[in-house]
């Protein structure tokens, strides 16, 4: 009897673990639909069935049991995608070595992070939860779907999204190196440690290839090469199985990485921040490299002093697939506004500006077949705005992920605590001092410095 009980329990638990991702059906009626890739459709309905966009058109009848949202007078756009975020992670930097491709932010997903909810309140349905930039090669990074409300970290992950990894150049990894008196302490060192890692990864790959080949021969006696997750990941980058997302600011270091990538045959490369990307836009375009930038951040450190808010426009006009990202728990809530700044600085069209936070981000994460535009067959990730999303007065009203409403401004509570614990000691407000360390990429690493070296710089 006891055994049966245990068996039932085990089954129950495993069923729970394998719980299906929640998918919903919803009909969004009569909105101005900004498909991004297929133009703007007035007075149009969008039907999401079981998590996927089933139909876009006029006068679609609601299937029985389908929730209907009246979007009359509103704008309906694809869920916004942030190509650079750290929301929903309980750790960001490993940073104990210049090269740590063995770690993975997907192992530290925190589904309770209120930052995810706040992102939803800005129409953001997917974010790229990147490793930090304390070291030259950081960790693999997870693409999150903002299924806020689930308690299971696994369900926050975008199933089927390609693997990505964080690289970092310039001040962050070299500051880190200088503090620890190790390479890289200069941009020369950054190139070297990256090349070294690629070379070791290549050797490792060749050793395994040889072993696997030899093994097939009858009578083979020999041991396999020692397993290394670190080198395995480097080999996977060379094989093209992982998209590199490279934290970078200056034109020289961007150009350097392009050459390194060329030498090792790495084609999938997205530069992050890329403040001086505009200076090497022709090189980026020629290589097929992509760029993810801030709309107007500059001068928060020396390496972004020679920036321009026209960066995204110059990159776009030169044919580089460009996105606007947040790297910030604050900015992620108004990426639509950040994208609109490219209309002020460079005169991008509505569709071009919206692409910077939707379809282009999807391309950079390798998921443009799934999300980034409103098209039949794509995921039912939708943001509904009162006013136009590129207007400063535009307000995100409803955000839908896989057909499930995850944010509704009308139902949003003043106090979002599920319950108030009388013993809780959390009622101390936090005020960010007006600072200039905009770069959230160093989070965690900075705290370590503080405890190790008694400094917070």
């Amino acid at each position: 009897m006891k055994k049966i009980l245990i068996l039932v329990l085990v089954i129950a638990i495993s069923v729970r673990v394998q719980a299906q991702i929640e998918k919903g059906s919803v009909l969004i009626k009569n909105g101005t639909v900004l498909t991004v890739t297929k133009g703007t459709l007035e007075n149009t309905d969008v039907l999401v069935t079981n998590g996927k966009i089933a139909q876009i058109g006029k006068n679609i009848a609601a299937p029985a049991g389908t929730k209907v949202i009246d979007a009359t007078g509103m704008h309906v756009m694809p869920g916004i995608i942030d190509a650079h975020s750290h929301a929903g992670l309980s750790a960001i930097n490993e940073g104990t070595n210049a090269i740590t491709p063995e770690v993975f932010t997907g192992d530290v997903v925190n589904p309770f992070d209120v930052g995810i909810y706040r992102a939803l309140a800005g129409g953001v349905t997917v974010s790229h939860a990147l490793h930090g930039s304390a070291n030259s090669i950081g960790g693999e990074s997870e693409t999150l779907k903002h299924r806020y409300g689930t308690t299971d970290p696994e369900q926050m992950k975008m199933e089927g999204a390609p693997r990505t990894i964080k690289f970092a150049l310039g001040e962050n990894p070299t500051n880190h190196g200088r503090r620890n008196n190790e390479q890289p302490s200069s941009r020369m060192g950054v190139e070297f440690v990256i090349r070294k890692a690629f070379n070791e990864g290549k050797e490792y790959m060749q050793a395994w290839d040889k072993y696997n080949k030899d093994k097939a021969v009858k009578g083979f006696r020999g041991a396999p090469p020692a397993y290394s997750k670190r080198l395995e990941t480097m080999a996977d980058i060379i094989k093209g199985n992982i998209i590199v997302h490279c934290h970078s600011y200056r034109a020289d270091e961007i150009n350097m990485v392009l050459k390194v990538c060329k030498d090792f045959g790495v084609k999938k490369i997205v530069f992050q921040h890329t403040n001086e990307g505009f200076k090497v836009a022709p090189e980026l375009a020629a290589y097929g490299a992509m760029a993810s930038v801030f709309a107007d951040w500059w001068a928060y450190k020396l390496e972004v002093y020679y920036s321009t808010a026209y960066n995204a426009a110059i990159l776009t006009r030169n044919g580089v697939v460009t996105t606007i990202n947040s790297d910030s728990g604050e900015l992620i809530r108004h990426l639509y506004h950040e994208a609109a700044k490219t209309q002020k600085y460079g005169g991008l069209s509505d569709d071009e500006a919206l692409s910077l936070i939707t379809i282009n981000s999807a391309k950079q994460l390798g998921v443009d077949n799934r999300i980034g535009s409103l098209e039949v067959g794509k995921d039912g990730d939708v943001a509904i705005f009162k006013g136009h999303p590129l207007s400063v007065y535009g307000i995100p009203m409803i955000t839908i992920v896989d057909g499930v409403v995850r944010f509704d401004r009308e139902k949003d509570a003043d106090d979002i605590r599920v319950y108030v614990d009388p013993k809780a000691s959390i009622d101390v407000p936090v005020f960010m001092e007006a600072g200039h360390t905009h770069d959230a990429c160093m989070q965690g690493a900075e705290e370590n410095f503080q405890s190790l070296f008694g400094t917070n710089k």
Partner: protein
Amino acid sequence: MKNIFKITGLLVAAVIVYTVQVNAQVQKAKGGVFALTNANIQTVTNGVINNGTIVLSGGKITEIGTNVTVPQGATTIDCKGLWIYPGMIDGGTRTGLLEFGQVDQASDEQDAGQIIPQMRALSAVNPNTPIIPVTRVSGVTTVIVYPAGGLIPGTASLMNLHGYVPDQMFAGFDGIVVNFPNTGRRGFNDRRTEDDLKKAAEKSLTTLSDTWDKAVQYHKIDSATKGKNSEYYPELQALMPAVRGQVPLMIEANAAKDILGALKWVKEKKVKKVILTGVAEGWRVADEIAKANIPVVTGPVLALPSRDYDRYDKAYANAGLMKKAGVKVALRTTDTENVRNLLYNAGFAAAYGLGKEEALKSVTITSAEIFGVSDKLGSLEKGKNATLFVCDGDPFETKTQVKHVFIDGYQMPMNTRQTDLYEEFLKRDPGVSKY
């Protein structure tokens, strides 16, 4: 001998040609008499004048209206289809004090010491920082620059974003900054216990009160000796104008508890002139602020809520909620290099409850009133400073382009380092290969 003259002449000519060529590339501010014609003029205080003209002369608005004669010799700028707004005022920035972050040598934001009101932010402003042109071409013409640091970190000033020495930039207002003892956390990495936070705040408050009491004493001695009290006491000398109500205290308080604490302290100490700054949780205690009749400079609007459980848009809504309760509210960005986003901060405040009209006032006339310069700035009226900008639409709307900026009657160049980079790199030559 003749040859020498010839050579000298050639050299002089060469130098002149060279200079002219160089000058052709350098754009600088231009003074003179200007007439901006056929414009939609948002006066802020007297509604909108359609198809109007503004004449700028001697740094002032000398004419404004629909029936204006353009003076002879005036440079006329046709503003058909365009809008004219008064220069926008940011109530709190570090512009000019900080060149770029993370390098101590590039920052003059703060000095050592808890009580140093004699430190003047304006004297450390770099009038030639590229940040200033980048800022003013957005339409933000005038900003408070204020020091950071301890309890009384120094004196803030209002400055116009044009001038070659700080005196040319000074816009007529000083305020002494007080960072009211903070019971909240300084950031997400501040791991002090609640008890430690409380003790630190109490200790600071005692220091602040003692300082103020000393300043009052100093003022009494100074009055009794008719200013002949010759003892050099820089801190108290700097505070004396505040005791006398000639200069306000700009009291920074953000947590609801601290705002109430500041209101109580001000009442107890009978401080004559006060501006509350920061006021992130003002919405929690808006009625109390309104009752105390103390004006507020709040921002950034584009900020996170101060508590995890607060509604996500509380910072967007804060200004509107305070205004609704009857508080006089002006905005600030609390930024350095992106003060240009003041207009977007105002736009968000407008969308989340403040409304467009009040949002406009919160970066123009209300700010000017709070800083005591509404006779010169904050609206477009005859006799006020010729500090304004011309744009092609609602200035808070993200894509709106600013066409011309005037500060004290000088026409600003519209190129900045950022536009220069755009011009150079939009179509880079050579591209990938040289030939």
